[in-house]
């Protein structure tokens, strides 16, 4: 059998909320509740970026939070993917061009998947995480390639 190079483990997710109104966050929680129950696929929220494969970011990111978000991103092990949940993080949303906003998020850290909506439905968030999974498979293959 050939060598398996795809992402061979459950997907652990760290959620960083940067000035969100909480509605996006509550939809992420909804994805974990029995109705959607993403944990049955191994998608699990973890308490530290050191354990996470995916960084889920919500909110427009106030200026004071930008360096913290950068640090959280840097503390994740490779390969890693970033999913932005909600219009706030994607474009600034209703806070677009506000004086105290450092976002949109892709101006602070590299973003792999955008999940638009205000707030997006849990189905959309799950879809975004699955897209991140595909990206991680690609990155893992690249890392494996580098090692050989």
């Amino acid at each position, binding site marked *: 059998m050939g060598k398996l190079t795809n992402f061979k483990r459950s997907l652990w997710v760290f959620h*960083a909320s940067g000035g969100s109104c909480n509605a996006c966050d509550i939809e992420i929680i909804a994805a974990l509740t029995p109705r959607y129950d993403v944990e049955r696929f191994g998608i699990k929220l973890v308490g*530290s*970026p*050191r354990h996470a494969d995916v960084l889920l970011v919500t909110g427009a990111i106030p200026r004071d*939070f930008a360096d*913290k*978000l950068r*640090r*959280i991103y*840097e*503390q*994740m*092990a*490779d*390969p890693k993917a970033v999913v932005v949940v909600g219009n706030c993080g994607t474009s600034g949303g209703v806070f677009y061009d506000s004086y105290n906003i450092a976002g949109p998020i892709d101006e602070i850290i590299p973003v792999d998947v955008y999940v638009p909506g205000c707030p997006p439905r849990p189905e959309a968030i799950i879809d975004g995480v699955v897209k991140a999974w595909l990206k991680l498979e690609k990155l893992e293959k690249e*890392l494996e390639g580098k*090692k050989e």
Partner: protein
Amino acid sequence: MTWIESLTLNSPSGFWNPIVWLALLIVFAVIGYVIYSRGNRSYKPNTDQVKPFLSGNEVEDVEEIRVRAGDIYWGFIEALKGYYNVLMRMHSGDLRDYILWYLGLGAIILFILVGGV
């Protein structure tokens, strides 16, 4: 008595043998190496990636957030500041300085005792 028995120290509660100890050390070193070799090699040293996670906050220097043992003597050192400032400047932590002091003072004492003034 075999040579391995001659190295064994028996006591009522057990025995001690350096060869057995060495063998155990090697076994644990191999286990340690196997665990180490399975670690993630893609980590980046000298970045935030190797620092503890503190909700995204910068990890402060422990000296700034802990009470140090030296702080217990704070009042004492503060009261005798003049004396300690001189003493602390001399206390460089460099062994060569201390040997120089030792030789210098030794020479002076020898001069006084033997040479006589």
